[in-house]
């Protein structure tokens, strides 16, 4: 477990980190999220003991990073290696620096490259590899010493979709093995599906921290997406059914819009979900799918970071139908089912909080 407690760091006049705190549990993929310049890399560098914090403390299982015996694997944001040395030489070198014996370093080099489907580069010089493949090698180096703690700074930047999914697979596997995985990113859609816990940093401050699923569940569950066999609105070829539904539900409905073969309904309250179902039944509409649409990570991110910063706790995502559509946009609908099944697993931990 890594605990970052009240860390503050200034660079001259600029405050890079401002009383930042978060906890990373073992066996969990932890996402450190934020816009460019939010302080993610500074935070990671302080954890890695590259920079010293002006105040605050970082501990690994209760002791300082320096005292901790746990091995750390690190993928820096500024990544590069020796251009004129072979992959094997460099990987064995870093492995040995990280405490492996010569044989173990050679063995791990081969194993990591195999996992990353990069065995053919073993005896190639780094400068003969493409940028994406160099990045793979960097990742292999981060994992060379079988680390207990894996810290990846912007691991997805520069990777093509195939390699990105390979990386995700590796991160998931490491987390499943009970390792502590921290990674930073500013691309929310890319990390959403495999972050367990997150910390959202904005201007050096933590604006949101906790279990992602819980965070999502903490949002009002009043936006419903339902699908019918025949597109709901198109069934009569007019706007009729939408208006009919609006009339039936009256004040309980805030907004309604069609999307593909379904409809997105924003209710005044989550308690009106039953009323919506009954209204559909009365209209002889049998939904094929009927689910609460949770906010995507991107939407949460924009709300926390891109929107007004001073929102009171527990406020509804939107009172305005239009902006609601923007924030809880349609683009993320595809992921809804996945989120639903994750939520269905019944995570009851209440760490997820809004701030």
């Amino acid at each position, binding site marked *: 477990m890594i605990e970052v407690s009240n860390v503050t760091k200034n660079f001259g006049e600029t405050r890079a980190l401002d009383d930042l705190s978060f906890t990373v549990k073992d066996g969990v993929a932890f996402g450190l999220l934020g816009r460019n310049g939010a302080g993610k890399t500074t935070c990671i560098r302080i954890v*890695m003991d590259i920079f010293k914090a002006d105040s605050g403390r970082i501990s690994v299982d209760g002791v300082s990073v320096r005292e901790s015996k746990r091995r750390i694997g690190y993928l820096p944001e500024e990544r*590069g290696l020796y251009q004129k040395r072979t992959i094997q030489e460099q990987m064995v070198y870093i492995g040995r*620096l990280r405490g492996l014996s010569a044989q173990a370093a050679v063995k791990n080099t081969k194993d990591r490259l195999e996992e990353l489907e990069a065995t053919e580069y073993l005896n190639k010089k780094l400068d003969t590899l493409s940028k994406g493949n160099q990045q793979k090698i960097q990742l292999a180096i981060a994992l060379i010493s079988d680390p207990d703690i894996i810290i990846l700074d912007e691991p997805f930047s520069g990777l093509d979709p195939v390699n990105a999914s390979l990386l995700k697979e590796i991160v998931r596997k490491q987390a499943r093995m009970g390792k502590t995985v921290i990674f930073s990113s500013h691309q929310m859609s890319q990390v959403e599906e495999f972050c367990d816990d997150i910390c959202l940093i904005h201007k050096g401050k933590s604006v949101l921290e906790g279990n992602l699923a819980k965070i999502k569940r903490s949002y009002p569950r009043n936006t419903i997406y339902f699908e019918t066999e025949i597109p709901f609105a198109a069934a009569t070829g007019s706007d009729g059914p939408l208006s009919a539904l609006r009339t039936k539900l009256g004040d309980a409905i805030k907004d309604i819009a069609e999307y593909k073969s379904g409809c997105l309904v924003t209710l005044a309250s989550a308690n009106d979900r039953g009323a919506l179902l009954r209204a559909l039944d009365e209209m002889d509409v049998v939904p094929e799918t009927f689910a609460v649409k949770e906010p995507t990570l991107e939407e949460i991110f924009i709300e926390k970071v891109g929107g007004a910063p001073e929102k009171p706790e527990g406020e509804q995502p939107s009172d305005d139908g239009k902006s609601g559509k923007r924030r809880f946009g349609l683009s993320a609908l595809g992921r809804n089912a996945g989120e639903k099944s994750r939520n269905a697993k019944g995570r009851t931990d209440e760490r997820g909080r809004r701030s």
Partner: protein
Amino acid sequence: MKQIGTILSFEYMGYLKNKTFRVATVILIAVILIASAFPRINSAVQSISGPGEKGKALLIATSAGSGGSLAATADVDILNEIADDYEWETDTDSTDPKVAIEDGEYDVALVFGEGMTYKLYGLGHNFSMYSLVGALDAYFTEAARVSAIQSLPSEVRTGAEQALAIVVNGEIESVDGGDATSNYFLSYLMLYLLFMVMVMYGQFVIASVVNEKSTKAMELLITSAKPVQLMFGKVLGVGCAALTQLLLIIIAAAAGLLINFQSWKEQFPDAATGFVSTNLSAGLVIFFLAFFLCGYFLYAFIYAALGSTVSKIEDASAVTTLPQLIVIAAFIVSMIGMTNIDMAYVKVLSYIPFFSPFIMFARLSMGEAGYLQSIISLALLAAAVVLFSWVAAKIYRIGVMMYGKPMRLKDIAKAAVQR
């Protein structure tokens, strides 16, 4: 220590596997071998091309009576013998020597003047003219003395001949056993080797540090090992590469000189005596290595620290100017000092760390300083190495994570005093 060993061997192997390094070593060895065979090559060239084309010289024979007694001692045959770089011809005094030279007909022209004087005409750029006049002076002086003695009455002639034949030979006996002339060769070798190492391998250290910064390998490295370990490993790695290269060069030079020693002795007896009179004792070898290594480390740590303050190799030259100026100053002062090894300023500088590897070793090897003085100087040097490695490690630690513009002197100083 294990970390430093790992870094050292990685750096060292990097040089051994580096094509440029290997090619440079081979070229250096080839140059050394060729240089050591210089007398042999010189005589080979002479035997192929035959004796070099001789210059043309004109002896202007003055009409009988004038020209003094010098004219009587020289004719074309004698001149062809004593000044055989020239093909001598003679002509009457109607020839104007200046015209003969300007027309390019002759390279030099000799005209006797009044009394014991003569004039050698030639073009200013004719280098051999200046040694020719020396040879002619020697001959004419001798000839004039002999002819003067000949003209003396017979009863004093023998005495005069005896007086002329007197030669005095002194002998030096060094009370402390030292010999300022004997280890000239060794002192110069140290001087040149150290200078070469400081300029060349200092660049290696800088290039290696800047390379790790510019390729952005540094962040990964400093999270895998402590900056001070990285710095030591690198400096040692470059040092090992330097020693390997130097050892090969020294072996090549020694082998070359041994093989060609006879030719050296024949053609350059002074240089040959220099090699032979090198008086190597075990103590001297140990001091040589100690001064050499301490000198290398002192400068290498400074280079490493300064290298860490820039991010691009283009900026490196700006920060290396200062240490290079010190190296060049130390080198020049030492060169001058070696000919005046007992001067007060030389003694003072031989205790100052940046200069002592150059100067104290010269004083020791030439017998001007004893072991005790050398040990004091070496201790001061070693203390400076420790101090500078400590300061350099601090600058390095801060410097390696600074990207963008090179650090200003103020920032470097701040980094050096930080806790």
